[in-house]
């Protein structure tokens, strides 16, 4: 569907530059996102994908850059934004269970002082169910497997009921069943009109999962609908020739099949 210019974009980033010790990792990245899409952010290792997201969310200081969420500065719109980071670095021995963690997603809505009650618990259970973890509600987080922990944090982000989501490699290190569950979840979010940006590493599934893609390698290589942007030419540009394509002559399609690459 064509982007209606009178609708305010859920996310507009202008001139984002981030540096680690004077070396710029993300250089002058600007883009605008269309509502209700699943957007994949892809690029080689060290391309600055996670850094970009962290900078957008203010978790990483930036040299320059402005982030607007639905036209307003990000800081004033936090309630609308949800974030699922890469493998969480939390204390897994913390005395809390899966449901408890998911309910933390509601803390933003509750504000200062108010205690979570039955309503929050219900939302929490609902979100756990959506990620298939309803049976684990009372389980101590230290007793969950890696994939289960990831799902709990996904559920937490869902509980926030945000309209714009950032997810950093949600499919990393999860089994096929979990991956299927996650993509189903993302599609449901899309159906609800929400927007999700996903840092993704598996080039083979990009066309299947995402409406738009952002190719990043320090600088913005390309941003646009998957069909027109996720092309061999663009990919080679982003990955600097580290990809191998299999050209299938016998096939009627023009599209080469990507069989190997270091993403």
């Amino acid at each position, binding site marked *: 569907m064509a982007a209606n210019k009178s609708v305010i974009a859920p996310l507009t980033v202008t001139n984002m530059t981030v540096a680690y010790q004077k070396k710029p990792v993300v250089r002058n990245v600007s883009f605008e996102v269309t509502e209700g899409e699943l957007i994949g952010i892809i690029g080689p290792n060290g391309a600055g994908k996670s850094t970009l997201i*962290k900078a957008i969310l203010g*978790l*990483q*200081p930036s040299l320059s850059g402005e982030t607007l969420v639905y036209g307003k500065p990000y800081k004033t719109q936090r309630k609308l934004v949800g974030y699922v980071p890469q493998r969480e670095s939390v204390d897994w021995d913390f005395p809390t269970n899966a449901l408890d963690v998911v309910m933390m997603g509601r803390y933003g809505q509750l504000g200062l002082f108010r205690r979570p009650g039955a309503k929050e618990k219900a939302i929490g259970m609902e979100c756990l169910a959506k990620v298939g973890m309803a049976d684990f509600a009372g389980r101590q987080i230290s007793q969950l497997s890696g994939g289960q922990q990831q799902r709990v944090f996904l559920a937490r982000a869902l509980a926030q009921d945000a309209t714009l989501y950032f997810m950093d490699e949600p499919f990393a290190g999860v089994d096929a069943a979990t991956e299927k569950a996650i993509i189903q979840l993302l599609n449901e979010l899309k159906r609800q009109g929400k927007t999700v940006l996903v840092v993704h590493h598996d080039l083979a599934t990009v066309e299947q999962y995402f409406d738009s893609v952002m190719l990043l390698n320090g600088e913005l290589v390309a941003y646009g609908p998957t069909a027109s942007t996720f092309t061999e030419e663009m990919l080679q540009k982003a990955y600097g020739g580290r990809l191998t394509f299999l050209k299938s002559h016998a096939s009627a399609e023009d599209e080469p099949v990507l069989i190997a690459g270091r993403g």
Partner: protein
Amino acid sequence: MKRRMPSSIKRFIMTLLFLVVPVALVVTGCGQGSGAFKDDGKLHVTATIGMISDVAKEIGGDRVEVIGLMGPGVDPHLYKASQGDIAKLEDAKVILYGGLHLEGKMTEIFEKMSKKKSVVPVTKNIPESSLLTTGDGTFDPHVWFDVKLWMSATETIRDTLIENDPAHEAEYRERTDAYLAKLEELDRYAREQIATIPEQGRVMVTAHDAFGYFGNAYAIEVVGLQGISTAAEYGSKDVTALRDMLVERGIKAVFVESSVPKKSIEAVIEGAKKLGHEVKIGGELFSDAMGESGTEEGTYIGMVRHNVDTIVGALK
């Protein structure tokens, strides 16, 4: 997540640190003067507690310059010599100290100094039979509260001065005789005054077991809250036991000293009040140190008098 401080501010702070710290060190280091005594032909004497320096001043007169290390309110049991103190000890010809482990943390220094000069414990001539022992077998060092014993210390100080400055022997002897006479009178005064307290109430309770000799010499019972040195710990049983004793015997006053916190006594008093017996703080006593210099209580005689008057005033 790390917030990065602007590097200009970082640099400013680092510079500040590298400049300020060394300067501060140098300034404080230079603070103490070198050469503790005025070089003017007098005999240089460094003493520890005020009771000793006061006596030394009295019998030395113009012939000596006396520096005392421990001022009013200082606890000799816990006192640690500073760099400045070492200088004062080095520059003296004579060092006078209490001995009997009163200056518990300075033993090594005295040993070191004794190789080069006269280092004399003023209690050395007191016969062992006159000394009290504490619970753990050591001697109680608070001898100055028995004026007769302190008279012996006075004589020891005199002899030390004569040894180091024989030229003025006659003067020292004359001044000592005059001073001893005053001490005799003080001793009599104390005995008479204490005797005016009715026998049943003749008990003094203090936060510190420093008055053993006083009690012995002047016939008054002494009960303490803590052990002999101020480092001893006490527990709730000690507090309740003491309070019960006060209530039982109807003792009207307890005493605090200049070098020990009031808190321990206050708890006992408040507890007694709750049990219906009024005990008040009888006044502040001097134990390990004297009063402010320049005042009456800043001299040995004045201090003992103050203690006696305070005790008598509260218990009579």
